[in-house]
Structure formats: C-alpha cells, structure tokens
C-alpha cells in the first residue's frame, strides 16, 4: 500500500524551513528519502531504520516515529537548490528489497 505524503506541494522563500511527512498504515522496517529535479532521475538522500536515530545530510535531516509509522523530512534554511520533488519509499520487512513510493511532495524555493 502506497505511503501518504503531505503536503503535496510547498512554496518557500530562501532561508525558510519546511517539513515533509510520509505516513504508512502498515508497520515499516525502513524509509528511504529521494529528491528528483524536473526531467532527472531521483537522487538518494537518506535511509531511516526502525529503531534508528535521526539522520542528517547537509541541512536536511529526517526522523522515523515507529508508533505513528511516520517519517518526517526536515529542510532547514532552504536553498534554491533544494527545489524539486521529494519522495519517500517504504520497506515493510528487512531484506524485502521492494520500495513502495509515495506520490511525492513538490518543493519550490523562491529567491
């Protein structure tokens, strides 16, 4: 079952913060975050594991709440280069090797 991402779209000014959520109705083992710019391939950002701690990448970090089966991606002091569509991919079992992706959150950062 496809995870639900929210919001569907967000517009920011440079330097502002944003949070993107990814929720599942099923228990998850891992959540993978990707960013895709228009006309390009998705690019890996980070993996969050069940029981794992918050991860960070540049000014982008993420957390995984096991009780809610929800992962949140935090973008702080956003830059123009952060614009793109953010996807979460969820893995239900360790070693399942299949990711189920959400429909994406379109992030636009304006000068």
């Amino acid at each position, binding site marked *: 079952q496809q995870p639900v991402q929210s919001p569907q779209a967000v517009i920011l000014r440079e330097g502002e913060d944003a949070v993107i959520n990814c929720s599942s109705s099923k228990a998850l083992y*891992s959540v993978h975050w*990707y960013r895709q710019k228009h006309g390009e391939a998705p690019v*890996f950002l980070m993996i969050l*594991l069940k029981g794992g701690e918050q991860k960070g990448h540049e000014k982008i970090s993420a957390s995984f709440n096991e009780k809610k089966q929800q992962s949140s991606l935090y973008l702080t002091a956003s830059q123009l280069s952060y614009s793109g569509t953010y996807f979460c991919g969820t893995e239900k079992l360790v070693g399942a090797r*299949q990711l189920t992706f959400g429909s994406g959150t379109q992030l636009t950062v304006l000068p």
Partner: protein
Amino acid sequence: NAGVTQTPKFRVLKTGQSMTLLCAQDMNHEYMYWYRQDPGMGLRLIHYSVGEGTTAKGEVPDGYNVSRLKKQNFLLGLESAAPSQTSVYFCASSQLPSAPTGTDTQYFGPGTRLTVL
C-alpha cells in the same frame, strides 16, 4: 563509473508495436529494478531481479516482461504497447542488503520517456 544507464532516452510507439528498454549498471550490483513514473503517482515497481537469471513481479507487472541474462543488464520488454503504457521508465540498482542495516540505497538511471500513440 557511468553508474546506471538506460537506452533509449526517448521513444514513440504505435499501439501494438513492441520494444525493449535496456538498463546497464557498472557497479556490480546484485539487485535491479524497473519502475514507471506517471504524473501524481510517484514511482511504481514493475519487475525486479535479485540476481543474474532471476526475475520477480512488482506492483504493476501486467503488459511487461523482463530478463536478466547478465548481471550488469536488465531488459524490459513491451510485447504489444498500449496508450496506458505511456510513461517515464526508470531503472535502478542496489547492492546486497548490508549489515547492520539490512537494506541499501537504490541508484537510478536517467529514465526513458515512452509515448504510445
């Protein structure tokens, strides 16, 4: 390293025609995947392979076939194309799940934009 490459980048087919999309990776990855991406739908898994000579169905396998005769290549075939198969197709690859995480990153190719008229 070229990473993951896909051939062709663009293709236009007529309904009923057949074609094969080629994915190649030079990272010695065991696992390979084919996804399709439609507006507002995210990425949906078509078929995947956990090693040379193996294939398995994903979420939306109907109308597609795949083969993994060599470790570095994963082919996606459309035997009789339909307009509903108009989409952007992405190939991805990943290593064996690594300890202690039990999972690993998927690396994506640049995509093939297919239009079926």
